[in-house]
């Protein structure tokens, strides 16, 4: 004969309830935080492969990247990033200037280099796409 189960709730049951509830609330909180107020992050990729990820919470100085045949220097400030210099022929990446908001990006086509900002506080009046 197996031990017969307890049929009335005990204090220990409360502990199980609390554990499950804490897990639910913790997950909800984590998602809420992650979903709406993610820290602004610069994601750098070359030829489709992510090579660096820099938080823009505070200034992170300058970093140099190799992209194909070219070398680019990126300056990370608090809340913004820009390509400081590049030896590519078009210089479009340098002319783009600073990016400051999630979704914006700096592209160097010859080097197949993309610096894209993710996260940050969403602004409903910001533009989602640019024509031209």
């Amino acid at each position, binding site marked *: *004969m197996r031990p017969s*189960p307890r*049929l009335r709730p*005990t204090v220990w049951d409360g502990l*199980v309830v609390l554990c499950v509830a804490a897990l639910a609330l913790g997950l909800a909180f984590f998602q809420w935080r992650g979903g709406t107020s993610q820290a602004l992050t610069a994601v750098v990729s070359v030829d489709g492969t992510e090579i660096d990820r820099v938080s823009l919470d505070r200034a992170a100085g300058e970093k140099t990247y190799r992209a194909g045949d070219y070398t680019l220097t990126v300056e990370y400030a608090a809340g913004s990033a820009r390509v400081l210099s590049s030896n590519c022929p078009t210089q479009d990446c340098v002319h783009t200037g600073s990016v400051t908001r999630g979704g914006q990006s700096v592209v160097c086509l010859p080097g197949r280099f993309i610096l894209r900002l993710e996260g940050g506080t969403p602004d409903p009046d910001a533009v989602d796409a640019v024509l031209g």
Partner: protein
Amino acid sequence: MKLTTKQLTLCALLTAMALALSYLENLFPLTLAIPVPGVKLGLANIVTIFALYALGPGEALLILLARCFLGSLFAGNMNALIFSLLGGLSALGTMVLLSRRRGLSLYGVSIGGAAAHNCGQIAAALLTLGSTAPLYYLPVLLAVSLLTGGLTGLAAACLFRGLRHTDLMKG
């Protein structure tokens, strides 16, 4: 494990009951009240709890596997198999562990099982969809599992109370 004729009959009976309960709860989908995919009462869990205490973990596992395979076979949806298997196995595993804690009643075991069931189903969704989107449902599913787990615990407690003096409970 070696099953006596009585145990084998009981296993078959319980499997049939679990399948019937799964079918029954599909007739009254809880998703109408709480519109989140995956929300359900988990009536079949009553059978798992009962089997766990009345027969043992091995028999409970046997019944669970039979229910999952037959259930997806009847539904003609083998995709559902990974969901019910991952959900059912996590629930059973958790309940086996919890049932060893002498301080816990059926309610605690059942709630733990329901929560684990949901975690297992979300894991199945993550695997099949290849996306982290289903994770968004988990907090609600866990909160709901407190309620549904409590209810199945209550049902199981009533069951044991009713059967306490029958010879079913005496090996």
